[in-house]
């Protein structure tokens, strides 16, 4: 390697390390505050490593306000969020694999026009659909229930259809033909030939829909009325607006509880995740 190259590598390394420090700093501050006793949260200069680690902050955050009327334990939000995530992920996988299979591997009249229309809808911003969708769910008397938040997931989404379709098309068509010559129905080909080969793509779609539901704020804000039905995202906002500006250590502990599962999930599925995101940029 030439000397200039070595210098360049060193320079890049230094910039990357500096940027990493900047990018990590807010997350470290989150965890640091979450583990602090209250009197150390506002000390000047800032305390980075708590004098003692207050693991009890997490328990306190989850039971904060237990002495007050209408108290809802934080764990109820977690349970609600998990229920929604399961229903949405199941629906997303069940519906979009079928639909994407149809777009990718079956021939029918109007298919390409329908696919073009599907792609076009990705440009429609949610606020345009917000009012009529709300009116529809109100007519069905679903406001205040979980249904507006998970039922639509069972009827496909443009983004998941697109992602899965791209992947389904890469499976050799000869495999389907061979199975059909052996007498397999289209359903059998779908279930026993194509689906097993598409597990990574299905995992990506499941992962994205889990994250989307876990993080969703606007949906629950519109449709959920009773605090008992709130999700973590909505619960955290409620918590913040009620008790924000006082016990920052407890608020950060609550926030960590919302962030941690997502980060843990990411570390277990890192490769899938990165492939999936890279895939979205390629048309």
């Amino acid at each position, binding site marked *: 390697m030439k000397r200039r190259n070595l210098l*360049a590598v060193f320079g*890049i390394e230094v*910039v*990357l390390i500096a*940027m*990493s420090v900047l*990018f*990590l700093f*807010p*997350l470290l*501050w989150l965890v640091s*505050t979450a583990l602090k006793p209250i009197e150390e*949260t506002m000390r*000047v*200069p*800032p305390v980075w490593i708590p004098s003692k680690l207050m693991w009890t902050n997490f328990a306190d955050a989850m039971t904060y306000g237990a002495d007050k009327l209408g108290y809802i334990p934080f764990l109820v939000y977690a349970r609600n969020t998990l229920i929604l995530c399961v229903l949405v992920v199941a629906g997303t996988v069940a*519906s979009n694999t079928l*639909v994407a299979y*149809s*777009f990718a591997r*079956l*021939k*029918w009249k109007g298919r390409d026009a*329908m696919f073009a229309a599907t792609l076009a*809808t990705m*440009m*429609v*911003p949610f*606020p*345009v*659909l*917000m*009012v*009529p969708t709300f009116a529809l769910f*109100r007519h069905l008397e679903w406001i205040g229930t979980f249904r507006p938040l998970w039922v639509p997931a069972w*009827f*496909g989404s443009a983004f998941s259809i697109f992602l899965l379709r791209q992947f389904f098309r890469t499976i050799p068509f000869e495999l389907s033909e061979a199975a059909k010559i052996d007498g397999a129905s*289209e359903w059998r080909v779908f279930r026993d030939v194509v689906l097993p080969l598409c597990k990574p793509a299905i995992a990506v779609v499941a992962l994205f829909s889990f994250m989307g539901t*876990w993080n969703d*704020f*606007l949906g629950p804000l519109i449709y959920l009325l009773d605090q008992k039905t709130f999700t973590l*995202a*909505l619960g*955290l*906002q409620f918590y*913040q*607006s009620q008790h*924000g500006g006082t016990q*920052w250590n407890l*608020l*950060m502990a609550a926030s960590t509880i*919302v*962030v941690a599962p997502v*980060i843990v999930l*990411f570390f277990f599925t890192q490769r899938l995740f*990165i492939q999936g*995101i*890279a895939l979205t*940029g*390629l048309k």
Partner: protein
Amino acid sequence: MSKRKQNLVGYLFALPWFIGFSVFLAYPLVASIYFSFCDYSVLKKPVFIGLDNYRELFADEVFWITVKNTAIYAAISLPAGMVMALGLAMLLNAKVPGTTFFRTVFFLPSLVPMVSLAVLWLWILNGEHGVLNEVLRMVGIRGPNWLGDPAWSKPALVVLGVWGVGNAVLIYLAGLQDVPASLVEAAELDGASPWQKTRHVTIPMISPVILFNLITGIIGTLQVFTVPYVMFPGGSPARSTYFYAMYLFDNAFLYNKMGYASAMGWIMFLAIFALTMLSLKLTEKHVHYGGGGTA
């Protein structure tokens, strides 16, 4: 298999989407055009009032404030985010030791749920005890009142946005890794400097990815809602963070002006459509769809 049976099987597999598309996309899209011409509160039946909502909107001072805020925010945060994302992706693509670690670090913040992100930055940017200003003080800079000063509230949101560029970094990185090494080597043999290689080989080769990130960036930025909604209740201070989607939401669910909100929704849609077309048109000559057809 007969043509008819083939069609039938195809429709059956796509059936969930035919329902989903009609009920949750086509119907709301058409209905919201109609509602935008109506006085509608959800509680009562919509009453047709022609263009009144639009007329009222264009005379609505708050509407223009939110348009202006959103435009300013987009004009700062889009370029800032794109330069940062592309820059980081290029550094990562230099394949120096530790790339996998750095990639994870840059991506982590974009995993943080919006509400947690907002709550965390409320604490970091806190006027009296915020750690960012404490750190700035150590190096001799007096930090501004990020959350309370109308001149600094938007820059605060831009900082947050730039911190969350991880998604775009990964998309750029995937694009960069598709640039054929032979092209870069050829440029090197011709004596191109690193800057020339970047300017005349790398950037043109990943231009479709840049365009993709630009368009998704426009669509996302114009709809910015959750973070300002949580961080700056009511668009405080002095309405400097009152964004378009927040006013739309308030009209729909706070003031029960559903027709008015629908009109705002359609104006947003048209703006996104126009900006997308404009970006496609303006970049037409500069975007190269060459190579293996991956982009």
